[in-house]
């Protein structure tokens, strides 16, 4: 049986976190991943305190196992939702889009394990200084907002730079990826895209179909000109954005405006003309819908088998 220090740290069986994907990571998905032995996460995205509280209570009714909340620090409701996780007794918080320093003392006092998502060594160092429990080093293979480094290059550099446990994210789609992440020095992984096609994931059927049909080269990064690149599937909408981005006469404000609400349109409406279908590069590795339990079991079996077999290279 495979076990890493992350299992003990978070009180879970499989060292797998489900990514805090905005509009996607709701109570249904979080509870399903936690029930399967991983750590499910609810994304607080740009929602207010009451929405998050309702989702947390819904998830509590569906699972007795721990689950976490992802807080996007740029959210206009960040202060509110930061308080809700304390009030609702959430034990794990992951953070994105900034440094969680200002909430850290309240969270640590409440016994919350804080896991900032970082995309560079400097980010990881700031997270460590502010009191993070561990960091999630996310490479640019992942879907959604991305940094510049790949997981292969980022994870070992973060492992060397901080005295905290490191969780690898980005580009991990099966047991081979998880085994590789452990070899790079991580104690576990976070996966987003793999869970997009889970039975318990509520994204629009067109979204799932697009992920299932995607090939290796079917994602792209839009928003580079705006300074915050986003990895998504190539669709009529993302192709249009790419074209406008390359045209310097199109003002940045117009590009920003086009992105507003676009993820919701993809997730809830499957709108290929106006929606942003965020997805990681491993979409090309996903060929079927599975339950979260099947995904986690498969990940664990594959990883264990690969790690056991790794000795074959030593002569």
């Amino acid at each position: 049986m495979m076990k890493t220090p992350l299992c003990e740290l978070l009180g879970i069986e499989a060292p797998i976190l489900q990514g805090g994907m905005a509009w996607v990571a709701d109570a249904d998905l979080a509870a399903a991943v936690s029930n399967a032995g991983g750590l499910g996460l609810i994304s607080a995205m740009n929602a207010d305190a009451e929405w998050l509280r309702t989702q947390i209570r819904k998830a509590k009714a569906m699972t007795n196992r721990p689950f976490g909340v992802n807080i996007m620090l740029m959210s206009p409701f960040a202060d509110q939702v930061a308080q809700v996780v304390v009030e609702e007794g959430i034990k794990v918080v992951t953070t994105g889009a900034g440094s969680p320093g200002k909430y850290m003392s309240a969270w640590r006092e409440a016994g919350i394990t804080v896991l900032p998502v970082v995309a560079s060594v400097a980010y990881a160092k700031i997270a460590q200084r502010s009191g993070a429990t561990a960091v999630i080093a996310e490479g640019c293979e992942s879907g959604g907002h991305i940094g510049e480094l790949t997981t292969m290059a980022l994870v070992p550099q973060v492992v060397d730079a901080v005295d905290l446990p490191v969780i690898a994210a980005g580009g991990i789609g099966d047991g081979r990826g998880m085994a590789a992440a452990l070899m790079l020095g991580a104690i576990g992984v976070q996966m987003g895209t793999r869970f997009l096609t889970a039975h318990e994931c509520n994204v629009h059927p067109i979204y799932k179909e697009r992920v299932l049909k995607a090939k290796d080269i079917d994602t792209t990064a839009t928003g580079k000109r705006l300074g915050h690149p986003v990895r998504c599937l190539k669709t009529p909408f993302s192709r249009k954005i790419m074209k406008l981005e390359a045209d310097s006469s199109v003002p940045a404000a117009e590009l920003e405006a086009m992105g507003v609400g676009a993820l919701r349109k993809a997730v809830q409406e499957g709108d290929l003309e106006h929606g942003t279908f965020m997805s990681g590069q491993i979409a090309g590795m996903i060929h079927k819908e599975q339950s979260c339990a099947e995904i986690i079991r498969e990940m664990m079996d594959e990883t264990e088998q690969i790690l056991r077999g790794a000795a074959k290279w030593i002569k």
Partner: protein
Amino acid sequence: MNNFETVAKVLAEYKEIDPSEIKMETTFEELGFDSLDIVEIIMNLEEAFDLELEMHESLVDVKSLISYIESLQAKA
């Protein structure tokens, strides 16, 4: 060196340009800084000023950076 000169020096060194190109009104966008660059710059500024800085979304230009640094110096 006053605060502006120190900030200009740090930014200019990071970007490998002449400090005279940095003005009070210069924005991070004009300098082509993304969020990863800003984290690096924050670390460099911490060293230059011997202060602990936090990331803030309000930090968008030289002016906001300096007023943030001055608010911390006032507390110190």
